[in-house]
């Protein structure tokens, strides 16, 4: 893992990996959305509002996966002191925060016609809102630490690990507690002919949309990592120049 501790080596890899994640991601996500909005059937009860699914589920998944990435990077930072871990976590936080926001927004738009309400304080909705606030808190902490010069922030890393506790709560909220939100429709093996409660006509475009948005997410994280590294490099160069000037004066 420390092979990529050398930023130059990581940057060489990231330079070609970024477009090779983004391009197929955009392609697959757009195809999946067109498929979902025009090709896939309407639901027996929900009608056309079921199509919000193709935004709602990928954003929920990416919100949770994004925090798992932050938690993994935080662990690598605290235990192995990996120099890129903090950068990776900071890079994942902004697209991460966008995901639960989009999830809550799309869910609210669906909830009004389907449930008869924009918002309720049930377990699933509340824990997703908590995830959004965790992201905002993480961004504030990590950016403050980066501004103060440390670059690596122990406090943000601990926050990233502790916040991961919310992820199983989001997942199990609909199983532990009676909630207005429906229990999971997709079981692993559902695509292979298992007992998923969702018809395959919804499942395939949903799977494609999730894959497409995940690729875009990965590409955006790499892009942000390169930006953060470039910014740090430029700052170090300026600092060196200032030191040289000071020494000459």
């Amino acid at each position: 893992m420390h092979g990529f501790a050398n930023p130059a080596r990581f940057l060489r890899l990231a330079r070609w990996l970024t477009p090779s994640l983004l391009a197929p991601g955009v392609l697959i996500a757009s195809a999946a959305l067109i498929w979902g909005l025009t090709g896939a059937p309407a639901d027996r009860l929900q009608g056309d509002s079921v199509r919000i699914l193709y935004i709602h589920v990928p954003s929920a998944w990416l919100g949770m996966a994004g925090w798992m990435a932050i938690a993994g990077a935080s662990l690598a930072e605290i235990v192995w002191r990996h120099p890129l871990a903090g950068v990776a976590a900071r890079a994942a936080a902004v697209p991460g925060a966008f995901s639960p926001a989009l999830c809550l927004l799309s869910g609210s738009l669906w909830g009004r016609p389907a449930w008869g309400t924009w918002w309720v304080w049930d377990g699933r909705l509340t824990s997703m809102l908590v995830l959004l606030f965790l992201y905002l808190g993480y961004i504030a902490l990590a950016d403050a630490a980066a501004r103060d010069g440390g670059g690596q922030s122990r406090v943000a890393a601990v926050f990233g690990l502790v916040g991961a506790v919310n992820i199983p709560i989001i997942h199990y909220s609909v199983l532990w507690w009676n909630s207005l939100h429906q229990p999971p429709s997709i079981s692993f093996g559902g695509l292979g002919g298992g007992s998923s409660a969702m018809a395959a006509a919804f499942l395939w475009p949903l799977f494609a949309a999730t894959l497409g948005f995940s690729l875009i997410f990965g590409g955006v994280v790499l892009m942000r990592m390169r930006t953060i590294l470039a910014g740090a490099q430029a700052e170090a160069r300026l600092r060196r120049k200032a030191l040289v000037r000071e020494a000459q004066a």
Partner: protein
Amino acid sequence: MTMIKAKHQRLVLILIALAALVGAVLLAAWALRNQASYFYLPSDMAAHPSSPDREVRLGGMVERGSMHNEADGVTVRFVVTDGKARVPVRFSGIRPALFVEGSGVVAEGKSSPDGTFLADNLLAKHDERYVPRELKDMTAQQARQAVAATK
């Protein structure tokens, strides 16, 4: 005593801290299992009847064949069931589109002394089944088979 590498020490410390944290959260979730629930099931209501002046939420399935519209055109009577207990409900007002017999509902309101639940708001609860509109005239059993056949 052998020397432990600093990074291994940190790893063990973090794993212990995380295990303690997860344990604490699981205990809290278990303790909150009633408070964090969004609604009571009919069997909960039967076991612990709520006082008539307390607002509660009742959730369950609308029993098939139990829905009756009253003559005033806005009042509906139906029975909410969870398979173990049944609670009759009365509601006047606008119903959500997904509110149909045999599907889930959450009613907000109070119980009355005669055992009827007087709802002042209805929320339709969608279940986890997603079935294309073309399959809607089938029974639940047929729809499940049809869904399975598309895979």
